[in-house]
């Protein structure tokens, strides 16, 4: 039984890979602006889905779970960068006090500067939820219900985040224009 189940899971995850791998990596890339990190996050999302395959009732549930894992993973990367940046800056400040080296630029800020597109830069400044909703809605073309499922929030919250996120994007791009 175990072998059969594992075989089914392997086939299922392989099909899911064929249909969603590239899209998922690109979705995460829009959240992180780092292809290597996006592939790592997407890979972890697939592994988690593979591991929990037997508990997912159908392909739709598997795709929703995959997206949720990917978005959560992207958020973890961003938080990790923030934590590391804070520590690096603290170290740099200590080092500066001793005159040893200058403060390195923040990882996130560096990523933003590397991408010259105003939209990408503005997107990176949005709160997590707004950024995720914007990307899932306008890149992945998901419905409000699908976004709600992927982010584990209510459809009403999706509307709110989408509206606020879009307004904020437009305001910031107008300011920087």
């Amino acid at each position: 039984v175990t072998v059969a189940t594992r075989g089914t899971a392997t086939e299922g995850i392989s099909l899911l890979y064929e249909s969603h791998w590239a899209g998922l990596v690109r979705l995460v890339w829009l959240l992180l602006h780092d292809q290597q990190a996006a592939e790592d996050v997407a890979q972890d999302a697939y592994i988690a889905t593979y591991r929990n395959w037997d508990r997912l009732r159908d392909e739709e549930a598997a795709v929703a779970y995959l997206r949720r894992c990917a978005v959560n993973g992207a958020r973890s990367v961003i938080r990790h960068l923030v934590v590391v940046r804070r520590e690096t800056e603290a170290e740099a400040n200590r080092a500066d006090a001793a005159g040893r080296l200058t403060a390195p630029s923040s990882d996130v800020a560096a990523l933003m500067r590397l991408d010259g597109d105003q939209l990408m830069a503005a997107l990176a400044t949005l709160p997590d939820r707004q950024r995720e909703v914007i990307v899932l809605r306008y890149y992945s073309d998901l419905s409000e219900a699908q976004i709600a499922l992927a982010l584990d929030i209510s459809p009403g919250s999706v509307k709110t985040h989408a509206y606020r996120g879009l307004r904020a994007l437009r305001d910031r791009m107008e300011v920087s224009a």
Partner: protein
Amino acid sequence: MSDDMGDLEDFRNFEEGVRVSLHNKADGISPNHRLGAILEAETPAKRRTGYWLVGVAAAFVLVAALGIGYLLLPRTTASTASGAAAPAQNDKAGQRAEATPLAAPATAQASSAPTPDAGLWGMPVYATVKGTASQPWLLNPVSLLEPYTATSGDQATQQAVTTLVSGVAPDGQKLNPYGYQQPWKAGTSATVTVSDNLITIRLSQAGKSGLTSQQQKIAVQGLVWTATAASGMNVPVRVEVAPTTSPPRTAASRTRPA
């Protein structure tokens, strides 16, 4: 009215612009293939079994190693812990250490105990993650969206600490932030007791061997921050390791007096 319509049209144009721009940017990415790595990661034979030490020697090494971490903690993370018990002050119940928690960081996910009618709560867990060259491990605040099943703040604290130690939330969700490092051995359980002025965490076994003092310190700090964030209490936290000669207690202990 016409201004409103104009605004709406502008907004829709902007929406479309966002859609096109996102596709233009993302569609230029050519992902590398990783199906092999995905399938390989879940092959049963590849699953990590850990490098556990067994028997008396293991108990001695691990308790001693973690004890060093405890010893360092009051000096390096808490300015008001000078009166805390040092690891040398063992009693028969096992190794003990006590640390006054730092003030909750600004990024703490929960500043007060959740309420039972909340339905869901963002369970705060301070996970150990890869850091910098000089600080190999750091703490990353993670908020796990969980059904609120606890009947008290004490149980909620128990759940958060158990999730940190086991790496698995009550609903089966894996604690897996980017760069995650697990300092606790598989099968480790934690029993949390909350009183008005002290939180006690009793671990069934000590942490992994081979950790540096910095890693040990961060591991214990994660316990302290998780317990205080989940409980919403800024009180000292005592961490104990159960003795190897008697079975650890398994149930959460007394309820905090009203």
